[in-house]
């Protein structure tokens, strides 16, 4: 079995109101020196088989078709 982690983040230039709110809350909690905060999503995915190249290709297709909205989001695939 192959384990993979897919990280989906907002593209640069896309406003992230939730990240902004978290940034503000961290400041309120007294954490100084916090720069920009951007919120994203993490998917841990298990795949049958042991072919890593195939897994990466499949994961890329999954990102393009469902996991990320490529209008506003980037994705990174990390096969463990």
């Amino acid at each position, binding site marked *: 079995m192959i384990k993979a982690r897919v990280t989906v983040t907002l593209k640069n*230039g*896309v*406003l992230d*109101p*939730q990240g902004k709110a978290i940034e503000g809350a961290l400041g309120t909690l007294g954490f100084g020196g916090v720069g920009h905060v951007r919120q994203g999503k993490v998917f841990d995915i298990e795949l049958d088989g042991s072919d890593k190249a195939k897994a990466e290709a499949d994961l890329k297709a999954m990102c393009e078709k*469902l*996991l990320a*909205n490529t*209008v*506003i989001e980037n994705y990174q695939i990390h096969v463990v």
Partner: protein
Amino acid sequence: MKSAVVLLPGLNRDRDMIAALTKISGKAPATVWQTDTEIPDVDLIVIPGGFSYGDYLRCGAIAARTPVMRAVAEKAAQGVMVMGVCNGFQILLETGLLPGALMRNASLKFVCREVKLEVANANTAFTRAYEPGQIIRCPVAHHDGNYFADPETLARIEGNGQVVFRYAEDTNPNGSINDIAGVMNEAGNVLGLMPHPENLIEAAHGGSDGRALFEGVLGIAA
């Protein structure tokens, strides 16, 4: 004019939409379910608002991958009119039938209130019963209505007149770019909008500014 309404688990504005279509066209719309792979022969397909699939992953993301939405996309390609309201708009964007994306409201708050809309393009099959630039009242109720498109896409849709409705008179409730409230595809047969015109169609609603949208698209404009 015959119409159909798409039903999906989690949508909750379907009854209002069916009532509006029935009252204005005089005929009850057909209904199609998530697993349907064929849509009856109709002139207009409407995707109502709500929270399809609990807004899981992204608003409209799961709905956009259902069999019924593949059928809607096929109909749209054939030129059938398609209109998505609120979650229906989000679903059309996720399906790729419309350009851009809808993000969390800039205020991070769910907004449920009345706004003013400018009819930015009255020369469409949807808005032909309005005057160009007409300002209408319309309710909104959403958490993710903050329209976004990259600069190239934005320039293209603005240039093509694909921006059909804009929030007017400083009533933008969500921070959407260029005050965009509704956009259509390049071919002009698919429209998505965040506000709820189906909730302002008769005196009992306190106004009927939304009625002309249905009259226009249903071909019964006065």
